[in-house]
């Protein structure tokens, strides 16, 4: 793999850009791999990358039924933050956020991490108390966040309307080192790095069956033939139940549609990420100038990658009150992704009832921010059988009553 650098740009400029190589190879699958990861989204590719980088395991295939990063990795609103209430969540999300800080250097691929800061608005007394509590918890967890008053919110976000008649802004939880990144670049950067380590990324290869013998996985059947493996990692978000059914066990998740939309591009008007959880909308401005807006999930199981329109209506109505200028914007695109939601809104990074099958799922509405941390923990779990970061996220936590209850902590999307 040739490194990307200013020198490389200059070199290619002198020869009509004919020397760039493909960022990753697309080989035919081999007969056997040490590890197969199903799902070439951010989490799957990150898992493969840290298996190679941290543990030297490079005989790895990453199977993808569609195209690389074409699922939720390419559909989210790219927000990165780690201001969670519960200790296990704060640990893994902060690990992820800190890995984002130097990811571009690590991968030699510009993921455009922009630590522009994230505000979560408090618009009810209940939220004020909740976020102050989170700020205190974050102080203990070593995650720098602070409670800010409405005046400071207005300084950070001049376009905000503090005096909303229904939901006035009473303050906010501010994480200065939160922000956004280019979501596709995260998948592409990991894919390029994995390919450079000799891993096989096999796209348009759908898993149609999981073969196990004596409670151990031995391989998978795919649309490109049967492939053997010693260990299998399932990292397929909304389709994880479908895959676990093939392996013969059930997961405590349900798949629902989550929506987002973007406006027409406008001049820079907001250089932080704002989340308003009471009114259920969050917004940031992309480098192209589009306002990127996240909506809510449907309440029913769904695999259609589109959501109900009334959620868009609710989100935009709420944003109109908090950001009056939004009412003059045209919306360009709306789309949906299928997210896998667990009972306590926290993910699963876990061993499974089948030996040597590991699952990484249940990220629900907030998976993008976790990609590097999730891959780091999943790789550790798959390589060594134990990961301190992943320990609390076992799928057995429901049976033991050890919930990581971010649904109560966050209220809504997180």
């Amino acid at each position: 793999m040739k490194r990307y650098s200013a020198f490389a740009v200059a070199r290619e400029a002198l020869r009509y850009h004919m020397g760039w190589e493909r960022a990753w190879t697309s080989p035919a699958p081999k007969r056997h791999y040490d590890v197969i990861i199903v799902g070439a989204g951010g989490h799957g590719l990150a898992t493969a990358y840290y298996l190679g980088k941290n543990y030297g395991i490079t005989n790895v295939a990453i199977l993808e039924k569609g195209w690389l990063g074409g699922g939720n990795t390419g559909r989210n609103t790219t927000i990165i933050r780690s201001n969670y209430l519960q200790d296990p969540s704060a640990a893994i999300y902060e690990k992820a956020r800190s890995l984002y800080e130097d990811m571009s250097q690590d991968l030699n691929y510009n993921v455009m991490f922009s630590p522009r800061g994230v505000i979560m608005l408090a618009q009810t007394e209940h939220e004020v108390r909740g976020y102050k509590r989170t700020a205190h918890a974050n102080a203990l967890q070593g995650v720098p966040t602070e409670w800010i008053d409405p005046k400071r919110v207005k300084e950070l976000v001049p376009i905000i309307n503090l005096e909303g008649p229904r939901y006035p802004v009473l303050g906010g939880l501010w994480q200065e080192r939160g922000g956004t990144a280019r979501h596709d670049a995260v998948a592409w950067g990991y894919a390029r790095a994995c390919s450079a380590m000799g891993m096989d990324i096999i796209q348009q290869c759908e898993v149609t069956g999981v073969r196990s013998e004596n409670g151990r996985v031995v391989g998978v059947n795919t649309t490109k033939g049967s492939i053997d493996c010693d260990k299998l990692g399932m990292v397929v978000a909304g389709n994880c139940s479908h895959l676990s059914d093939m392996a013969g066990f059930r997961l405590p998740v349900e798949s629902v549609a989550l929506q987002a939309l973007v406006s027409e591009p406008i001049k820079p008007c907001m250089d932080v990420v704002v989340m308003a959880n009471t009114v259920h909308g969050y917004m940031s401005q992309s480098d192209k100038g589009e306002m990127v807006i996240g909506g809510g999930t449907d309440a029913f199981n769904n695999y259609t990658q589109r959501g109900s329109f009334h959620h868009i209506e609710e989100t935009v109505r709420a944003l109109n009150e908090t950001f009056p200028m939004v009412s003059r914007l045209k919306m360009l695109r709306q789309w949906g992704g299928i997210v896998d939601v667990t009972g306590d809104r926290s993910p699963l990074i876990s061993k499974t009832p089948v030996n040597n099958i590991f699952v990484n799922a249940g990220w629900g509405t907030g998976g993008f921010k976790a990609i590097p941390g999730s891959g780091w923990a999943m790789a550790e779990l798959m390589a060594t059988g134990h990961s301190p970061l992943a320990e609390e996220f076992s799928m057995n936590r429901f049976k033991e009553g050890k919930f990581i209850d971010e649904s109560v902590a966050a209220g809504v999307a997180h």
Partner: protein
Amino acid sequence: MLMLHCPFCDEYVEETELQAGGEAHLKRFGPGSSDDEFHDYLFTRENPKGVHFELWRHINGCGKWFIAARCTVTLEVFGTYPANCTEPPQWIKDKISEKRPGWTWREFAG
């Protein structure tokens, strides 16, 4: 937007009039049941890619519960029936068989 037929009001109503109630035909486990049964009853849910049965409540209408047979891949609705049924009526099963030959779901219970 999803539209479902309320079997009590005999009207097609929009999703905004309804409240989703999750998986239908759950068998309840309580005191005396095993840990596994109780865990599955509380936390494990069917999450099929295809035919699904789920509870809905006509909350901004008659307020009654009914069950919808629906495809989670196409959002096609096969039919709705009152929630006090232990399994779907035959006409719904026939309609699903016609449109999704070979469909399966878990055992209907309670």
